[in-house]
């Protein structure tokens, strides 16, 4: 068991690690992920006693504190108990020594084997890592990148250490070689204690059972790899996941706002966090157990912004909402999909307080919504489906956009006008006087819709409930507006409830998706999961009906079986 207690490392005044606590059990594979410069490699080097900086804390391996060992004792520790596979594959081998010599070196240095036995062991190791025996006599420049990586792995195994550290084990390899090396690493990791240091989440997913997310010298989230990747709770973990291109998630890539700063006070992540409160700037959050993982966040991870419980709404005898429960967390997009008449718009109206629900509860920011005050509408805005009707014909463009600012009393007159202009520019509209003075009914459908979007964005809300906001727009304008919304989401943590019947659009913009049918949510989950393995037959139909660019058209209607069943039921008055 490898135990790290309150490990701190600094180079001069620059603190790289600011108190790391970790426990890695025998035979466990732990990955340490994070952007470059978060201290991953420093941590790896410290475990080997190779860190040049000032080290404080405790690293215990077999009841022995590594950090207090003498230089000679550290030397015997290295490779005999902890070995490492270094990052820079191309340069990690001595160009003037053969692969065999280099693999053999640590065995002979510690006099573990005689020369003959060491040579024999080199051949066994080469076989184990999938190289031919002839490679022993080759020099590094005669080996390919993948072969070099295998030699490095064989070398790491030489003295049969208990702990192996893999520092970015696949970063220098092409995709195919990468898969092969990952397989090999998986094989050698069995029964050993392995620490994988990487910024590549897919490597962490493939190799590790446990994952620690490191940011700016602190662990911000720690738990089972699978759970962390499926449902990241810390905003940083979510940011990493959103910016990592992969074949699993479908949402457009989003980054993490700002850049890594050397934060002296408070949570290290607070300058980049979209849900920070004043406490985050003053106190360092402890890594605390929370359900299935440990998390270091004053807000307990990503907060739930909006939640409904068993919302029911009836129009006469028709149930428009039938026990609808949804949850929206900060900075995410929940797409509500379903055909028209499934209750999507009713849900939006109930949330906004435009319709009263019969029963059920709505929570906003953790407290139950009873009556909505002005403050609520400062944070929550709606973009309506039919903008022609939602903009008064007595208002010109400027008046319409400025209206929320007037209501909320934000800024002076001049400032309001500037803010309105900025919002209009963001949605790709003109800001000259003639346009600002134009009345809504003189605008085209697409223009009015964009005015409506500008009006919702102008007060910079935290949550937007968007009911088919882009349905009247050209694909090109829609793309720009979606990009804008996602950018605001990235920068300020804008949360969106996005109602759409466009499955393809939902796939690109949402983190989670809820499928509605006849007032009920029939399926709900992470977009990638729902879309790759839909459980409900209705979801399957929706997916089949989604736009695609292939020419096989005739199949579609035939395969929408569930919808046909529904229609039959309707006709028979069921």
């Amino acid at each position, binding site marked *: 068991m490898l135990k790290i207690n309150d490990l701190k490392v600094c180079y001069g005044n620059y603190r790289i690690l600011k108190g790391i606590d970790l426990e890695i059990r025998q035979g466990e594979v732990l990955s340490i992920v994070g952007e470059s410069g978060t201290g991953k490699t420093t941590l790896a080097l410290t475990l*080997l006693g190779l860190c040049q900086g000032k080290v404080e804390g405790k690293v215990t391996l077999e009841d022995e504190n590594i950090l207090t060992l003498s230089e000679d004792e550290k030397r*015997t520790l*290295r490779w005999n108990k902890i070995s490492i596979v270094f990052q820079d594959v191309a340069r990690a*081998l*001595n*160009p003037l020594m053969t692969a065999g010599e280099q693999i053999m*070196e640590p065995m002979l240095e510690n006099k573990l084997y005689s020369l003959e036995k060491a040579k024999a062991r080199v051949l066994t190791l080469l076989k184990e890592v999938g190289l031919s025996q002839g490679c022993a006599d080759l020099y590094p*420049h005669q080996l390919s990148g993948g072969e070099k990586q295998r030699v490095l792995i064989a070398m790491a195994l030489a003295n049969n250490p208990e702990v192996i550290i893999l520092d970015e084990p696949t970063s220098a390899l092409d995709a195919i070689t990468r898969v092969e090396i990952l397989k090999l690493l998986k094989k050698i990791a069995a029964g050993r204690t392995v620490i994988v240091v990487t910024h590549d989440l897919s490597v962490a997913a493939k190799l590790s059972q446990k994952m620690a997310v490191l940011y700016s010298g602190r662990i911000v989230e720690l738990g089972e790899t699978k759970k962390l990747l499926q449902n990241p709770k810390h905003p940083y973990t979510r940011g990493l996941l959103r910016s990592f291109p992969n074949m699993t998630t479908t949402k457009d890539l989003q980054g993490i706002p700002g850049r890594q700063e050397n934060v002296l006070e408070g949570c290290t992540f607070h300058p980049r966090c979209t849900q920070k409160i004043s406490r985050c700037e003053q106190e360092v959050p402890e890594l605390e157990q929370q359900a299935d993982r440990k998390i270091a966040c004053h807000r307990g991870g990503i907060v739930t912004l909006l939640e409904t419980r068993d919302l029911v709404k009836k129009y006469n005898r028709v149930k428009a909402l039938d026990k609808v429960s949804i949850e929206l967390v900060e900075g995410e997009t929940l797409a509500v999909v379903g055909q028209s008449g499934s209750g999507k718009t009713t849900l939006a109206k109930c949330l906004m307080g435009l319709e009263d629900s019969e029963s059920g509860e709505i929570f906003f920011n953790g407290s139950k919504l009873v009556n909505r005050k002005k403050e609520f509408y400062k944070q929550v805005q709606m973009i309506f489906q039919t903008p022609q009707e939602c903009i008064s014909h007595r208002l010109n463009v400027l008046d319409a956009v400025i209206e929320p600012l007037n209501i909320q009393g934000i800024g002076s007159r001049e400032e309001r006008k500037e803010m309105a202009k900025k919002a209009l520019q963001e949605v790709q509209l003109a800001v000259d006087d003639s346009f600002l003075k134009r009345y809504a009914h003189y605008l085209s459908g697409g223009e009015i819709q964009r005015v409506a979007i500008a009006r919702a964005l102008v007060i910079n809300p935290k949550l937007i409930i968007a009911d088919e906001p882009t349905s009247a727009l050209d694909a090109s304008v829609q793309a720009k507006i979606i990009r804008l919304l996602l950018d605001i989401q990235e920068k300020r943590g804008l949360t969106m409830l996005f109602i759409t019947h466009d499955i393809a659009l939902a796939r690109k913009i949402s983190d989670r998706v809820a499928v509605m049918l006849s007032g009920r949510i029939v399926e709900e989950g992470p977009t990638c999961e729902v879309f790759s393995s839909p459980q409900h037959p209705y979801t399957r139909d929706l997916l089949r009906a989604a736009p695609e660019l292939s020419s096989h058209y005739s199949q579609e209607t035939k395969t929408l079986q569930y919808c046909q069943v529904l229609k039959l039921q309707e006709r028979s008055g069921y």
Partner: protein
Amino acid sequence: MKKKALDYLLAFIIIISLNFLLPRLLPGDPLAAIYGEEALIAMTSELEAELIERFGLDKSLPEQFIIYLSSLLKADLGYSYYYETSVTKLILGALPWTLLLVGLGLVLSTLLGFILGLESGWNRGRWQDKGILTGLMLLNGFPDFFIGILLLLVFAVSLGIFPLSGALTPYTGLSGFALVRDILWHLSLPLAAVVLSEITASYLLTRTTVITILGEPFILTARAKGLKDTAIRYRHVGKNSLLPILTRTGIRVGRIFAGAIFIEIVFAYPGLGVLIFNSLMARDYPVLQGIFLLVAIGVLATNFIVDLLYKKIDPRVV
């Protein structure tokens, strides 16, 4: 390697051709260019005719070239009218001493510079490094002959431990071990002077190389493998630093010859340096030309050896 050998052959042909062409391209009488004005004053007309006949100066250039080449093959580099003996004989008399001095000087200065550079670079910024660096930079500030004079004054004149001049004690009829000792005794001071004036170049190069190599990832690998400092320093850093040092040594041969001239003169050491100096003073062109040819070939040969060594050390060189 074949291509390398061809390159050397080409360089050799060019050197020989230049050596042949240069005096003949000079304006005026080629004999004057070959022998110098002074030699010609004492020349009788029969001698002149004999020389023209010998160099084929009345024949065409290609024919002259063939005559030149065939005399080269016979190791005939001409005749020194100043020393009144053949140039080949003169050079052969001086060459062993220079080879001893320059050859040993080159090897020792490279080796010492390498070791000091390795220690210095390894301990970069610590007192060992600062001490060696300061000392050698100070030494590097002195001209070659000044070091010679200084050594001579201290160890030969004041302390009297080493002889003042020469390569061996004349007329003693020593032989065997006693002779070797005598030769080494005479060699000590000039050799020290050569080594001291040459050491800085290889030291500085080694130090920089070592510092660069210490930053290489494979050194981190070696450290992580738990190797002892000496193993890392010599097996990993040292061997890799050797490559640029070797290359540089090949280039330095020409320079060290020139440096040795002054030192030989200071110690009146009977090598090529003194011969060059005297010939220059007497404008004994045939001797000078012969020596230049020899030095050029020497540089070529050393570089060839360096190439062979390089191939031995660096597997990447094909």
